[in-house]
């Protein structure tokens, strides 16, 4: 009997076709779209937000597997409007990306980078908060719907206050610590950044994701990225752990290892 009830509740909550494909946009009890589900971006924004042709891997021995694939870019207008000094800083970061990209150290991706990293993330939309968990490095965001408070402290994933504009979920993110990058090409923002995200359903299995980034210390004007997000529709999909901390230990602490000991993890 309990199974029947469970099935009934599931039916009401998530109308579906086959596997995890939905035939109807789910709505929460308050009438807003229900963004719950597992989503992933399908582009090369994580390599480079700007338009780019293919490129060599940062370590040549890694060969074609780790070469950079091409992308039309996700920035409105093509290029990020850097101030001249900031552009020089971006280029310097690009040159030092092997050692300096925080992603290599399993550091959290921040916002908006976490959205378009090549890993899934899960949205759980509750009646008061919206939670997003990211497979990469177990990132976590608590989004305060109707929230108006300011960030008490800076953090890697920022402080998120949200509201609805029609069917668009608008999230204003402040309190970012400026220590993440925006992609693997050295693009960046600072702790002065404000990021405004917009999640708009395009049918039951796609979201339009937009993020406007403002940082007067780095850019000459606000600029916006835009991309689709795709619902993961695999049957019975579960987001497994990608706890990359151990994989980054050699990179971060290798130089402090006892010289005579075996290098690297023995796992």
């Amino acid at each position: 009997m309990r199974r029947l009830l469970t099935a009934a509740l599931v039916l009401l909550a998530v109308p579906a076709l086959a596997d995890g494909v939905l035939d109807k946009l789910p709505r929460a009890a308050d009438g807003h779209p229900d963004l719950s589900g597992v989503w992933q971006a399908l582009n090369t924004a994580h390599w480079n937000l700007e338009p780019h042709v293919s490129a060599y891997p940062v370590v040549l021995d890694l060969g074609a597997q780790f070469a950079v694939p091409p992308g039309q870019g996700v920035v409105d207008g093509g290029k990020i409007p850097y101030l001249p000094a900031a552009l020089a800083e971006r280029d310097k970061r690009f040159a030092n990306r092997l050692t300096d990209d925080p992603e290599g150290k399993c550091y959290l991706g921040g916002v908006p980078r976490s959205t378009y990293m090549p890993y899934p993330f899960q949205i759980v939309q509750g009646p008061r908060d919206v939670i997003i968990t990211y497979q990469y490095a177990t990132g976590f965001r608590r989004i305060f719907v109707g929230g108006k408070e300011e960030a008490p402290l800076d953090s890697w994933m920022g402080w998120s206050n949200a509201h609805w504009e029609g069917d668009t979920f608008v999230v204003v993110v402040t309190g970012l610590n400026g220590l993440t990058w925006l992609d693997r090409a050295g693009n960046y923002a600072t702790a002065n950044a404000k990021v405004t995200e917009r999640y708009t359903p395009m049918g039951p299995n796609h979201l339009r994701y937009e993020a406007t980034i403002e940082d007067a210390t780095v850019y000459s004007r606000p600029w916006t990225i835009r991309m689709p997000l795709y619902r993961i529709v695999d049957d019975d999909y579960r987001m497994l752990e990608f706890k990359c901390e151990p994989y980054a230990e050699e990179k971060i602490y290798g130089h402090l290892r006892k010289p005579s000991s075996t290098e690297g993890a023995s796992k």
Partner: protein
Amino acid sequence: MKRHAVALSVLAALAAFAAAPAALAQKASTQKPVAHKRTPWGEPDIAGVYAEFSIAPLERPVEFGEREYLTQDEYAQFEKQRLNAVNEDVETVPGTQADVHYDMGTFKLSQNEGVTSPNMRTSIVTVPKNGRIPALTPAAAARRDARAAARKGHEFDGPEQRSLTERCIVWPSTLPPILPGGYNSNLQIFQGPGQVVIQGEMGDARVIRTDGRKPAQVLPQWNGNSVAHWEGETLVVETSGFNPETAWRNASEKMKVTERITRVADKTLEYAFTVVDPDTWEQPWGGVYPLTEMDGLLFEYACTEGNYGMANILAGERKAEKDAAAKK
């Protein structure tokens, strides 16, 4: 195969059945369940930010024997002693090892952050009857000893020899079963249709399906694989498939944990758990304690990003080795 939404009236009837108390619910909770607030989709609402601190200690003081509860007369004294012990201002003596620490008071860190959380039990552990965690099996003791032996003399060779907390991988007090620990001993719960999110303050958020469906493949995870379902007012979470390196309290990867979370009052949840691992403990064990809603939020615990300590620990040992070599 197309599925259609069920008519609301049928759903309402089924929902009424699920909320029916008595037989089903009493098995799930040790307290008489009351129909508390509901989520918009009809489940018991257990969301909130909670303090784990319990007046009852984890294990029962031996003098209580098999007594599960204190009397009213005993409780006041017991509570006072416990709170004093937990919040005692300890003067440390300069030049001693105990003094080599930041002042917890400066950072307002404590086991209970002002939460009292009444609990008339003599311990959190209630199974076995003596309120104490059973002994390790010989196999588990052997595993523990083998790990210690392998590590001996190599404790500072590299990051892999350090503990999982120093490596910022998992914090034991946030793994299922969640037990009160030192500071930041809090957890938060969020709910969405078909999902619940449980996160210990210094750990990973566990996003758990509430449809009871088990995965076709169980892959070892640091936090285990959790599946949940509702039994009346109680959320039952079953976790298995642990990474063998997790080794929570020396457990094996076969450890199975059942958590039962029930709202019992406006600001209180009951958190009950059982742990089964015949490779590790001679018998199943478990317990129960209250989770008390608290003001304030759980700030981001980005551990590896701020882990200067690991570098300092390894650098310190490398310098000590250099100094020792220079003396030769």
